[in-house]
């Protein structure tokens, strides 16, 4: 119901009330994961792929802080390397998606007309098929590795960035300060880079954060299905592959990477404030 006007700011409802703290925590967790991902090669960790068949599914110990998996590999090393692989894969996808989606989105929102009609139509077609199904198809045809898959994912996600950027650009492009820029004789390029880009940055970053979570999910999905990162290499997805068998004897082997993956996606969603999104994974 309406708050009375006199109360000033409307009371926010639901769990997003304390968003300041929640968001800060989420951002902190993502940053820590990123830092770990970069630093992994320099950390004193065991070789993530070395098997100790005499020491499988070992519990927590000084030698293996998180124990070992079904092939006797050090779980902590695999977890950190896996996080690195997954994050880098997701970042690859986002970089491609931004590189494609951002310029087309700005152009479509700025020039409108046939540019918008044509690019919009392409975006519609790409968005018809779920990302995972598309990646499976590409894998069937090309047998591309994880990098190829993530580049494809970038192309598949480009329409999502394109749409947000286009919508924001249309909004900003009608604001008076842009008109002022045009009148004072700025070139189109200058308008796009110096006037539009700063105006659409906030919303675009929100979408990027959200898509990063989605990319992690897709990477985990395809690696889990065995068509992404190839075993024995660790990623958050491959660590979960065929995990059902371990649930009975050592659930930790499944639950630890699952928790890290879920927390990462959760944090990225919180940063991306999914409240304002109509669509999500898929």
């Amino acid at each position, binding site marked *: *119901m*309406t708050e009375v006007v006199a109360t000033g700011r409307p*009371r926010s*409802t*639901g*769990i*997003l*009330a304390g968003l300041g703290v929640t968001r800060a925590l989420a951002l902190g967790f993502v940053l820590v994961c990123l830092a770990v991902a970069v630093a992994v090669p320099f950390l004193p960790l065991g070789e993530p792929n070395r098997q100790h068949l005499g020491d499988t599914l070992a519990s927590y110990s000084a030698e293996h802080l998180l124990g070992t998996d079904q092939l006797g590999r050090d779980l902590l090393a695999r977890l950190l390397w896996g996080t690195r692989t997954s994050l880098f894969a997701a970042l690859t996808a986002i970089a491609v998606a931004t590189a494609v989606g951002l310029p087309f989105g700005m152009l479509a929102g700025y020039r409108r007309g046939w540019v918008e009609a044509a690019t919009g139509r392409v975006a*519609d*077609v790409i968005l*018809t*098929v*779920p*990302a*995972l*199904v*598309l990646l*499976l*198809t*590409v*894998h*069937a*045809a*090309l047998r591309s590795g994880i990098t190829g898959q993530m580049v494809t994912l970038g192309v598949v996600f480009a329409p999502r960035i394109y749409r947000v950027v286009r919508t924001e650009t249309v909004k900003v492009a009608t604001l008076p300060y842009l008109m002022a820029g045009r009148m004072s004789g700025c070139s189109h390029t200058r308008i796009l880079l110096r006037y539009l880009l700063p105006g659409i940055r906030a919303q675009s970053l929100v979408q990027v954060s959200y898509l990063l*979570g989605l990319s992690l*999910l897709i990477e*985990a*999905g395809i690696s*889990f*299905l*065995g*068509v992404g990162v190839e075993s024995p290499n660790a990623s958050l997805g491959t660590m*979960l592959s065929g*995990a*059902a068998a371990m*649930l*009975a004897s050592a*659930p930790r082997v*499944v*639950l630890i990477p*699952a928790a890290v*993956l*879920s927390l990462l*996606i*959760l944090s990225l*969603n*919180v940063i991306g404030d*999914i*409240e304002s999104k*109509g*669509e*999500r*994974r*898929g």
Partner: protein
Amino acid sequence: MLTLILRQAALRALAAVPTLVVVTACTYVMLFAIGDPAAVVAGESATPQQVAQVRHSLGLDRPVIAQYLDWLGNAVRGDFGASLHNRGTVLDLIGQYLPPTLLLSFLALTAAVLASVLMGSAVGSRPGGPVDRGLGAVAVLGIAVPNFLVGYVLILVFSLWFRWFPAGGYRDPAEVGWATALQFLTLPAASLALGLMCVQMRTFRASLIKEYEGDYVRTARMKGVSPGGVFFRHVARNAAAPWVTVIGLEVGVLITGALLVESVFAIPGIGTLTLEAVQGQDFPVVQALVALCALVILAANLVTDLIALWLNPASRGLS
């Protein structure tokens, strides 16, 4: 009004045709021109001559456009070709793997829709309470956790600890009866439903809150309509339109989710078929599955759009 909706249906169905053609054409080029079906059929030990021979015998040396048009012509008549691995016709294969997936998706979607309406109404009518906050937190979590991980947790808790449900597999209800079949389907359907439910609940809650702020609610109160009457006769219908649209958009998520969940629970459904076809490079099967997927998504969006149109008379004026 009905004719108006039917006309809209026809128009939109027509608009979906080019999308479907473009999607299948791109897939076809990817699989049959960039990928190499002849090499798959001939086997890994085949000489280049043998591969060329297979290519010729399968008609794969013709221009790709001609090949695609042939495929399209046959597909329209319901003929999607045959598996490259002698597993019979593609249509038979799909028919054989479809029932578990249909059952699973139907159960998950129904559960998600019912639960989201109930919980959405409960918290949307009175936002800000402890129940609202609690469910809101669950929803954020339910959206973030990938559904195959939800599957693992459900197996751990309800199958390994409590031993209430089997940890995987599928039983045909026609053979073992519905009670047993549903026992096998409960956990996979629940893992699939959770994410969908959370998204739908949030949408319904948000649009209920928005509708309750509408001036027409005050008009209804002024008339003396009871709180229940305000909800059922006035608010619910208006709040349903955006929620229905989201259900349509979630069908893609449902398909993706079914694929992963089938893998977790070892269910011989379309997801399993897709994975087998992808790993075995069974191109005609993959091609048909992508077409089917696009068709289902376009149809779902069409249906939900029409329902939203029916719910919201003001949007009928625009075409």
